Structures are given as C-alpha cells and as structure tokens.
C-alpha cells in the first residue's frame, strides 16, 4: 500500500531472485499475477483511509471511499472494496478462460479511431465528477490535459512545455501527479484543521456491511466488472479509464444516490472495474504479446527470459502457463478476500492513530513513493509543487478527479486522434466508419442524455 511502490517495482525486484532459483515459468507467472492484484487491493486501503491513491486507477475510489472514512464508515468501505474486487476479479477470470482468443480480436480491431471515440466517451464521464460547478470540473480537466502535454511529443518528436529541462522530456508520471494532488494536498489540509475537529471527524462505527447494502451493490459490481473487463482488454486503456467509466456510469444510472458524498456503491463500482480490467489486460499480453500496462510489460520481459514468448502461439505451445495463470488468479482472489475481510477492522484502526504520528508517516510514504518511481529527486520536488496547487484548488472547491482523468486521457486522445487522421489523410469520416465507433458514439449519447431521461421518467411516475 505504499504509493508509488506498486506492482511494477515488486515484480522487477523479484524477477532476478526467481530467475536464480530456477523456478518453473508457470509458477513465476502465477507469483507475478498474485503480486499484481494483491497490490491493487493494497492501494484501495490507502485510497479509502488516507485519500492517498497508490495508483491512478485507485484515484476514483478516494471520492466516496474517503468520504465514507470521514463519516466513520471506513471499515465498511474497505470491506466493500474487498468484496467488489473479489466479484470483479473472479467473474472476469471466467471471461478470460472462456473468451480469450475471441476477445483478442477486439483488441486487434480497436484502432486509433476507436480509441479516440472511447476517450470522447470517457470525457463525457467528466460531468459526473463535477461536485456542483461544471466549469470548475472543466478547468480542472484542462489543467490535467496541460500536464499530460509535457514531454516529447511522440508523433513529431518535438518537446513541449519542457522549458529546456531534461527532467521533463519524458513527461510526468501519473503517480507523481496523483501523490502530489491527492496526498500532499491532503496533508496540507489536515495541517489547517484544529486537532479537536479532527478527532471528531472519524469515529469508527460499524465495520460490517448490511445485507441491504450488499444486495444494493451487487448489480453495480457486476455491471462494472463487465465494462471494466472489456476496457482492460484494450492495450493502453487500462484500469484507470475502466474505473472512471464504471463510476460515472453507475452515478448516472442509479437514482437516488449519494455519489460523491460517501455512497458505498461509489466504492464498489471502481473497485470491481479496476480488478476486472487487470484480468482483462492479460489477454493482449498472453494472446497477442502486447503488454497493456506497465506491469504486464515487466511480466512480458520476465516470461521472455524464461524462453516463453507470449503471442499468438502461446495457447498452443504453453497451455500450462495460460491455464495455470487463470487458476492462480482465481485462487489469488479467494485468498485476498479471506485474508483481507478479517483484517478490515485492523486496517481501519489506522484512522485512530493520532495525527502527529500519522501525518509525518504519510509524508514519508509520499516522498519515498515519488522517489522510487524513477529514482529522481526532481519528482519529489514535483509532488510538493503539485501538493501546493492541489491545496489551493481544493480550498476553492475544484474537484481533482477530472484532473487525473485529464492527465490519463490527454496523451491517449491526442496521439490516437492524430494517428487516425494520418491514416485517413485528414478525413474525419474515419471516426464513424467502424461498428465499434458507432456503438461507442451511441453509448456516449446515451450517457449524456441518461440523467435527464431518468429524471423525467421518475417525475412522471411520481406525478
């Protein structure tokens, strides 16, 4: 649950060890897969309890998770996060086992034009993250887009917004943005509060989820699992976009809701989508040899060293790796829930730690986390700068989730739009040609109109 010290680092560190021990490849893959979403859940803990998402995918969980923690419902949020992760993770494994080769085709058919439309769809989700003023959400998203533009532009090789600083040539890591804007600004806000307010804020009440809450979140978890899985299959989209879209969809679909101020379904949706997306991302890795995320990229490197080449031949040449992985993910999921549910109460006790111990500890985690990403002092400086900006934004009631969305989407939407335009010779018709594009446009339209429609239908029913 250290921010920044995510699965990528864990796997990279373990790799040389297992290599020397001459562990069979299938076992190694299983170990890596276990780490992969073990740390995924660890990240939810810090998101919910401390408002410190360890990865960009967990940023959405902070919205309702941390709101619940502030109301003393941190235990419930943690338990829901574990259950939703389990549902998302487990069901998606069945999708993986049943449809892997078929879904690989989806990844192939998803070209730059399709990605561009998917990003437009994700941007429409933006309106769900505006707590009040839509203008503020848009400004926040544009700030994110500006951060995303920093670095060398891959389409032309020109460097942008780097001010001649070599540290900025590669752009800014998501985690740095997330730690800065969420965690550091949170510390600054805590500093501004009186000790007495703080202790009142988080009394621990019930840890357990009621039957009603469970059944209420079940449908949310299932829907988010399906959408998360499909987005996870697309290399490049991944868990962050999956969690944002799932949250936004549920917020629009469910009426009434308290999304944004501590709705338990606001925890279930991103957590289920996130886990199911990480299972989905194994499809392009194993069937196509294309890593869909940083973590799967490290795994790819690892597998190759063992003489196993993920790719179109894997299912034929090394079925043991594929099926071993599917089975291990299932077992891993089961263990996660068995281990984590009884520990929820213990984790939630973190909140009872006095502030004078907790705050320096979080600060230390942030600095260590930012430093370990690239071993760069510059990143540490950046989290402090972002923390300050984030502090003022939050004081002025700017929502931060759109900013993260902007950072994640900025690069994707831009490069894919330009790729598509190069293919078509500058003709926008390319965005309306394929069935996938058309489906996504329809979904986008529905998501834009759904809240108004549902509202008017409900009014009719009531009147």
């Amino acid at each position, binding site marked *: 649950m250290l921010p920044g010290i995510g699965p990528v680092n864990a796997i*990279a560190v373990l790799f040389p060890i297992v290599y020397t021990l001459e562990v069979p490849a299938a076992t190694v893959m299983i170990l890596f897969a276990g780490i992969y979403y073990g740390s995924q859940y660890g990240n939810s803990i810090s998101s919910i309890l401390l408002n410190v998402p360890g990865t960009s995918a967990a940023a959405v969980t902070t919205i309702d998770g941390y709101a619940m923690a502030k109301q003393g419902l941190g235990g419930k949020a943690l338990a829901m996060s574990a259950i939703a992760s389990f549902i998302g993770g487990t069901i998606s494994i069945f999708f993986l086992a049943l449809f892997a080769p078929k879904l690989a085709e989806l990844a192939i058919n998803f070209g730059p034009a399709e990605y561009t439309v998917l990003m437009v769809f994700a941007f429409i989700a933006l309106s769900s993250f505006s707590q009040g003023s839509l203008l503020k959400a848009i400004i926040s998203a544009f700030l994110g887009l500006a951060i995303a533009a920093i670095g*060398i532009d891959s389409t032309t090789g020109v460097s942008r917004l780097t001010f001649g600083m*070599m540290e900025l040539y590669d752009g800014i890591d998501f985690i740095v943005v997330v730690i800065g804007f969420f965690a550091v600004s949170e510390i600054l806000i805590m500093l501004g509060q009186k000790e007495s307010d703080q202790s009142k804020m988080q009394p621990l009440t019930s840890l357990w989820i009621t039957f009603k809450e469970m059944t209420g979140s079940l449908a949310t978890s299932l829907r988010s699992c399906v959408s998360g899985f499909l987005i996870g299959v697309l290399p490049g989209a991944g868990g962050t976009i999956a969690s944002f879209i799932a949250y936004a969809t549920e917020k629009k679909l469910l009426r009434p809701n308290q999304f944004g101020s501590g709705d338990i379904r606001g925890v279930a949706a991103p957590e289920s989508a996130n886990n199911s997306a990480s299972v989905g991302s194994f499809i392009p890795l194993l069937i*196509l040899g294309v890593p869909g995320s940083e973590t799967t*990229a*490290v795994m790819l490197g690892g597998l190759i*060293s063992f003489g196993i080449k993920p790719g*179109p031949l894997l299912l034929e040449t090394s079925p043991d790796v594929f099926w071993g992985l599917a089975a291990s993910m299932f077992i891993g999921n089961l263990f996660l829930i068995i281990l984590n549910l009884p520990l929820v109460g213990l984790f939630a006790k973190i909140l009872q730690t006095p502030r004078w111990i907790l705050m320096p500890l979080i600060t230390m985690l942030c600095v260590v986390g930012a430093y370990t990403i690239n071993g760069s002092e510059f990143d540490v400086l950046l989290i402090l700068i972002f923390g300050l900006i984030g502090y003022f934004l939050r004081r002025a009631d700017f929502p931060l989730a759109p900013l993260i969305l902007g950072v994640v989407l900025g690069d994707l939407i831009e490069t894919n739009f330009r790729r598509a335009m*190069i293919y078509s010779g500058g003709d926008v018709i390319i965005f309306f040609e394929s069935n996938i594009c058309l489906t996504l446009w329809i979904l986008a339209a529905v998501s834009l109109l759904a809240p108004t429609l549902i509202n008017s239908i409900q009014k009719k029913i009531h009147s």
Partner: protein
Amino acid sequence: MRKPMQSILGILTGTAIAATTMLGVAMAKPGNTECIAPAGAGGGWDFTCRVPAAQVMGDMGLINGTMAVTNMSGAGGGKAYAHVVTKRGDDENLIVAASMATAARLGQNVYSGFKASDVRWVGALGADYGAIAVHKDSQFKTLGDLITAMKDNPRRTAIVGGSSAGGWDHLKVLILADKAGISDLKAINYISFDNGGTAMLEILSKRADAFTGDISELVEYEKKGNIRILAILAPDRIPAVPSAKTAKEQGYDVIGANWRGFYVPKNISNARYNEWVDIVTKVANSSQWADLSAKNGLAPFKSFGKDFENFVGGQIGKVAQISTDLGFMK
C-alpha cells in the same frame, strides 16, 4: 596530551588509508560494482544491466561480490548520461547499459549538449536486427514492392513502428529509403505507436501497410503465419526466421542493428577501462550468454574497445546526417 579531536582525526586517517589500500587490492577485479540502466524496469537497458552484467559477470566470477543495478530513467537515457558525465566521471566501478537508441540520441544531439566522447565505449555483446513486415495478405510481396509504393504514393503507404518520430524504428525505414534513392524522405508516412506490440496490431488488423521493428518482435507472428517478413536488416539470414531474406540479398545494402552494450565514465584509468573491455568480451564469448541472448531474441553481435568506439562514432554520424536532412535536428 592528545585532544579527543585529534584522536578522532587519527582514526579517520587510518581508516582512509586502510580503505585506499583495500581499494588498491580490489583494483585487480572490480568490486562494489554498479550498473545503471537508464530506463525503468522491464526494458532493454534494464535487461542489459540485470542479465549480461549483474547475472553473468557475477556467475562467471569476473567481478567481486554482486553488482547493484540502478534504474535511472529520464530523457530517453539523457538523465543517466548527464549523471555519469557530470557526477561520476571517475567512478572506476560503474558501467552503464547502452544500445543503438543511445547512439541515435547522441546523433540527434538531444543529450543536452553531451557528446559521445564524454564517456568511453566498452563493447556490444548482442543485437536485435531490424525487420520490415507486412500482413500475410498484403499486396507487397517483396521489399521492392513496398519501396515502389513508398516512391509512387508515399502518403497512402502507412508505415508503423514502436519508436517515436525520429526514433530508431523510424530511422531504419529512412536509411532504407535513402539507400533506395527516395529523395523526399519527409513524405514517408511513419506513424508512431507506444511499442512494437501495439504497432503490430495495426498490421494484423490491416490498418497499416508495413511494420518497422526488430526481429525479436516478429518471430512469433511469422511462425503463426500472420505476417510476411519482407526483409531483415542483418548481414546474413537469422536462424529464428530462416526464410526471411536480408535487405542486402534484395539489392539494398542496409544493416540496422539495435546493439546492446555498455559505456563507462571517461576519466577512469586506462587499466580499468581495459579490464571492463576484457570482462565484457568474456561475457560475450561465454556459453551462458549465448544461451540467454538467444532466448531473448538477440543475435550475436560483438564489438569491443577501440573498434566499438569507432563503430558508435560512425553510427552517430549517420543518424546526425539523416536527422539533419529531415529537420529533426538543426
């Protein structure tokens, strides 16, 4: 009576002398060694540090103790380059992973003014040769077909690759086109993707016309019969893809080797530089490395010491010339 301060100084001096003496003994073999991978975990540079350096050098007993691997990503290797030149210029126990990408970036002068002569080049111990491929149903049957299309209708011939514009995958196509007598290199329609794998999807889906990458990225797809390799940019055919013709066989004398190797800081002693050359030569010639490199899709490629320094210099010159012609560099 001696003051406490003096006795502390005395102890410190004594320790320093002892340390220096120990260092003198260690000169026989590098100890406390470190390899900097100028990128994050999982990439080619990381592999170069972890496998041939830390693992094989350690197993063969060429260094004392274990080698630490430091990932220092940033500016496409530029951050590590600047770090080594400015802060570690005389570190006798440091080696740094390098590849064709390092040379390409030096050629394009994007390492904030640092030159190839600011470090010493030790050697290369393997290479991933370039390759050009198309979909199995493509209208292009030979390299000549593709080059004709690039000449006649460059805008309609989309070529995809995993490097950014001006990067190594792009440069390979440009060097090839240059050799084939295409004068307007700017008209060549190269589309950049995040990595070789995602670029390959563009070929499998037939959205793009041709793929430029390294052989290791293609082997599995070729075996499965999804793609056709038009040419490999190697001096000879490669056992992994025996039916793929070299560009040279087809009349285009172009070799594109993404070599993997090392450089060391400039101001180390000649004796230590020669030791590093010797160590890398031994690793390159070992059976352990032969096995590991083949598993990782690398072909044999050996060049050491002075030869390697000249080779890198030549590559940098070539990249500089093409990049200037194309306006990537002023």
